[in-house]
């Protein structure tokens, strides 16, 4: 059995999650949605701003919201997470960002979200698996 076949088999046995992806960089959205779709997840919507993400979560009630931190000029990722959790439109939130400031990770955890630094996709895949 090849590694790629094992990966595919793992994808078949994994729970498929309904996901909304929000990032102001369209290329990041494309990468994450492509990879997670190949992982077997269902990307129900994508957003370029925090406000769009809040509306889409209200609309689709996804299992997971993956959101970037810095999305000027509107809501940042933590503000978006705070709103969707308050509205109870999403069960699980993942803050997916390049920013390494310790307070960002601490703030995310305080809100009950998971902090994942942008890098190897395996980290993001693993975060969805634990969900």
């Amino acid at each position: 059995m090849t590694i790629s076949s094992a990966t595919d088999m793992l994808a078949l046995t994994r729970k498929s999650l309904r996901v909304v992806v929000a990032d102001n960089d369209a290329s990041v959205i494309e990468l994450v949605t492509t990879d997670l779709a190949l992982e077997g997840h269902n990307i129900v919507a994508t957003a370029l701003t925090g406000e769009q993400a809040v509306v889409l979560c209200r609309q689709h009630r996804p299992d997971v919201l993956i959101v970037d931190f810095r999305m000027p000029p509107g809501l940042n990722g933590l503000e978006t997470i705070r709103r969707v959790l308050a509205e109870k439109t999403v069960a699980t939130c993942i803050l997916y960002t390049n920013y390494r400031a310790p307070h960002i990770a601490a703030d995310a955890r305080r809100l009950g979200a998971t902090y994942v630094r942008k890098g190897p996709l395996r980290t993001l895949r693993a975060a969805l698996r634990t969900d």
Partner: protein
Amino acid sequence: MKRHKDLLAVVLAVAAVCGIGGLVVATVLNAQNAGRHRLGQVQVAQVQELARSMDTRAQQAFDAFAGVLSTPYHVTAKDGQDAARLQALQALNPKATTGYVLVNKDGVVVNGTLLRDPASIGQKLDRPGLATVLAGKAAFLPVAPGITTTLPTIALAYPLKSASGALNGAFVYESEVSPTSQFNAEVATLAGSGHAKFSFVDGNGVVLASNNSVAIGHKLSEPLLGTRTGLLRGNGEVVVVEAVPNAGWRAVFQQPVRNFEGSLTSPLHSALIYVALLTIIIAGLLAVVLLRRLARSREEQRRLAQLSADREEFISIVSHELRTPVSGLMGFLQTALDHWDGMEDSERRRAVARAYANASRLYSLSRDVLDSSSVESGQLSYTKDLFDLREVVLTAVTAAQDLHPDNIVNYESTERPLWVTGDPERLQQVVNNLLDNALKSTPPDGPVVVDLTAEDDTAVITVRDSGPGLSGEDLDRAFDKFVRGRGRRTVGTGLGLYISRRIVEAHNGTITAGNAPSGGAVFRVELGMTSSPAEPVGA
């Protein structure tokens, strides 16, 4: 806060200078006081010496008359023997202008020489102090009108005794009080420079001798002349008073303070003024210089802090901007590798294409960073050639469309060649930057429009986006270093347009930014055309 620290430093420095100046002033004043004290001591010593000398002479006079008067006088009116003895005495000093007088125990004149009025005999001699003499004590009588001269006189009065030893009268020797008297001659020789006055005054304060001739015979007008002796200061004068006890007189020295201390204080005052002026000038200059130096130093600190902050921000921006395409490159390759077998051909192609697009982006960013350094040092290199600008623009448009397949890039070009002498790769870099900015500012459903035309001898490239356009501030700073757009997302190092302008200007062209009437930003590049190898420009 820093400004307060600067002011505090300046104040402390000025205070230090003033402190030093104050110390110098205090030292000079101290020296002046010491000098004044010493001067006073010297003057007191001089007057004391004068008083002692006069006192000795007074005593000598008493001693001399004691011998002369050892033989008793009859002390009766117009006694012949008494008169002969008086005449004999008078003859000892033929030039004398005053004479001798005998008075009885009642103070009545009984005999005399050089009497102005012979009728004085039988009259009471009205002279203050005579009663003391008649009581048995020799004394110098205070200044009073004389009877042997018209001038005021002092008198040496000696008690007379009879053969039995009983007091029977007094012997009075008058001496005139005048500037020309022999007695005054000695005082008059004393140096009176700088308005210095030396005088002898009797018990009533009347001047009996002085180097100030107008004061002789008059009461000395000196408010300080109380009963004290020694050095006195007041009313702008220095006064030294010493007693001449045997004569009952006082020696008095008077001089205005400015003359008394002038030789000492005048140069010191000048020195003090110079020190004070110098202190003020130095303190003022120091304050100005310090404030300027501190201001320059603060400005330099601010500049360096700003440079450091700019550098830090640049590093932060560059590292962030580079991280994005690196993540994209690795991410799409990782996805393709991990899911290769499960992907459709089109999905694989798309993943590899996206990886390539991110690699291109990485290349452009790193090139911009390196080029900006070359631009700063003036070492951006060009390889110039004659080429058709249409090819360069078409290549850039095609690459942009490939990298952004979801965007619409409309391109219109003139049909005839546009020959330009320049570096085609650098000019393509310019068009790439303009397209990159336009695509970042344009939503996916909005087109980016590129036009390439000729206006007389000038080739014109315009790139128009469908974004929000440029604000006034953005227009002013569009081509500055590190200025990043405020489109859908703020990305990029802020170096693209800065480098583009440098490249265009190196080709003697112009690049401008503006807003299109229909909305969106428009960038315009103008480059001078060259004659083609086969046809002239404008044909």
